[in-house]
């Protein structure tokens, strides 16, 4: 059902802006996932729950210590990093050698466990961090930008760039990329792939932790919040292509736009269906994803 009365250009622009804002957020969430996927060929179905943990972490840091989410970002980063390393060391690394199905299922187990742990510890209630130093909107004529969302998006872009530079420039980063391209070769080159794995898993989790902190500045928080975000992240990663950081970033933005504009021009009820549809069509034409190899 197309728009009844014709659309003002600024309304369209507003939608594009909104699409970008949520899109960048998706990108950051997806990049963590694609890193894990790329390096150790594991789909982390608990990624959405990692996001949830990140959000709760920033919520409690605010409620208990009055720490503004913006400042709790480094803490969330560290916290989720440690959690990621822990989960890899004691759970995921154990199934790496095991059958493919076990690899798929184990992270499902983790996700069920985490989300219900959250219910157990913090009740299923909905929480929201009251307007922090980030609040209100910037208005440019008819276009208005939510300040928290804008900051979050910028933050996610910056974080993504940092990761990108880290992978390209630093020695460890190069090692991670090498492992991602060819684990045997990496082994031959004397890279300790086990260390690289736990490191990448940690970083992947840490990134989504940062995403959680940013998201918590304007999004409500509850134990099942990760679900849909996680689902979208998977399709973004697969859309962007197996383990491709750049791919995930671009795909994230595309999905953000697709969902917003799709919702605006067609039936909002279908906006996620549209996203999944795009994903299916893409992998049909290009099974390795947009930038996959």
């Amino acid at each position, binding site marked *: 059902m197309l728009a009844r009365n014709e659309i003002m250009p600024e309304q369209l622009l507003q939608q594009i802006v909104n699409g970008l804002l949520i899109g960048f957020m998706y990108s950051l969430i997806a990049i963590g996932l694609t890193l894990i996927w790329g390096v150790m060929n594991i789909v982390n179905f608990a990624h959405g729950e990692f996001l949830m943990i990140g959000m709760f972490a920033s919520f409690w840091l605010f409620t208990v210590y009055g720490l503004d989410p913006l400042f709790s970002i480094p803490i969330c980063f560290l916290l989720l990093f440690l959690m990621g390393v822990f989960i890899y060391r004691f759970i995921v690394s154990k199934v790496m050698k095991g059958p*493919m199905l*076990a690899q*798929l299922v184990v992270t499902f187990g983790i996700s069920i466990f985490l989300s*219900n742990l959250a219910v157990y510890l913090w009740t299923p209630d909905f929480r929201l961090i009251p307007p922090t130093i980030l609040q209100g909107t910037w208005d440019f004529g008819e276009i208005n930008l939510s300040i928290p969302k804008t900051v979050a998006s910028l933050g996610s872009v910056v974080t993504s760039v940092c990761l990108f530079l880290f992978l390209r420039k630093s020695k460890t980063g190069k090692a991670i990329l090498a492992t991602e391209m060819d684990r045997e070769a990496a082994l031959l080159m004397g890279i300790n792939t086990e260390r690289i794995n736990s490191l990448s898993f940690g970083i992947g989790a840490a990134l989504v932790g940062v995403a959680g902190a940013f998201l918590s500045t304007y999004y409500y928080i509850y134990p099942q919040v990760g679900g849909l975000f996680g689902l979208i992240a998977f399709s973004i990663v*697969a859309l962007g292509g197996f383990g491709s950081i750049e791919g995930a970033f671009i795909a994230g933005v595309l999905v953000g736009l697709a969902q917003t504009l799709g919702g605006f021009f067609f*039936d909002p*009820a279908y906006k996620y269906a549209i996203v999944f549809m795009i994903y299916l069509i893409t992998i049909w034409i290009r099974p390795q994803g947009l930038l996959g190899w």
Partner: protein
Amino acid sequence: MKNLSPKHVTVGLAVLVLLIIFPMVVTQIFPLQIMILVFMYAMLGVAWNIMGGYAGMFSFGQAAFFGIGAYTSSFLLVTFHVNPWIGLIAGGLVAALVAAAIGYPCSNLRGHYFAIASIAFAEIVRVHFNNWTLVNAAEGISLPMLDESFINFMFHNSKVPYYYIMLAFLIIALVVCYFVATSKMGYYFRAIKESHDVAEVLGVNVVRYRLMAIMISAFLSAMAGTFYAQYVLYIDPESVMLLAVSVQIVLLSMLGGAGSVMGPVIGAAVLIPIAEVTRVWLGHKGTGVDMLIYGFLITIISVYQPQGVWGLLSRIGNKIK
């Protein structure tokens, strides 16, 4: 492992007899409800196993086929007063057709990509049914309460008929799975699971055999779907097409032991009672403890027992021999 040894046969028959007399001994409704659920999920697991365990297509979208089955028969019953038993077959066929339609474009997807594609597909189906006014959209379909009879596939005063019907369905599924596993198809499925290259070099038409697997699996899942509709008498997308249902199916198959005929049955027999009993005993406290245990279990098993309970049993069995 493929062919039935006399030992297997005797044990199997013993269990079957046990199950047949169970409702005569146990008159309480709660155990019956649990057993019916066990059978239903076991059937879904067996169906999943054909495409997942044997052909290596790890589908996380079985709920779509389950739901399509439930919806087809219910829609036909409510709108055109078609007998549920005919609806059962119709549902199976529709599901198989849809499966083929989605399976063909996905025929070169493997592993994670297939898994995620299946989730995407199931979500699209769910959203569509949620907005599709022809099938009552989100309101769902309430089945009319016809007077109880086998022909109407409806029984109001007792669960026992449902119990036996579902048991029969499960046995049908097991027989199908057994024949698939021990036939040419089974060998080819396992070749495909290993890699498309090895399958093709042995002259296997990968696309065709993958489609076969998906369609058989979809048909059986849809049968279970029709049963669910007749059993609960109300269906809506949020209860029959949920991702949680798909995941449940994969989890129990994997837990029982994917790639073995009985695996999913064991999985269901262990997981469903745990889930139900913990819900009844702990659920009302409102602290997700039951699910907490559940998730923990899944994790531990996939780490320490990735071949599933069945793998464990057969290994013990070999030790004894």
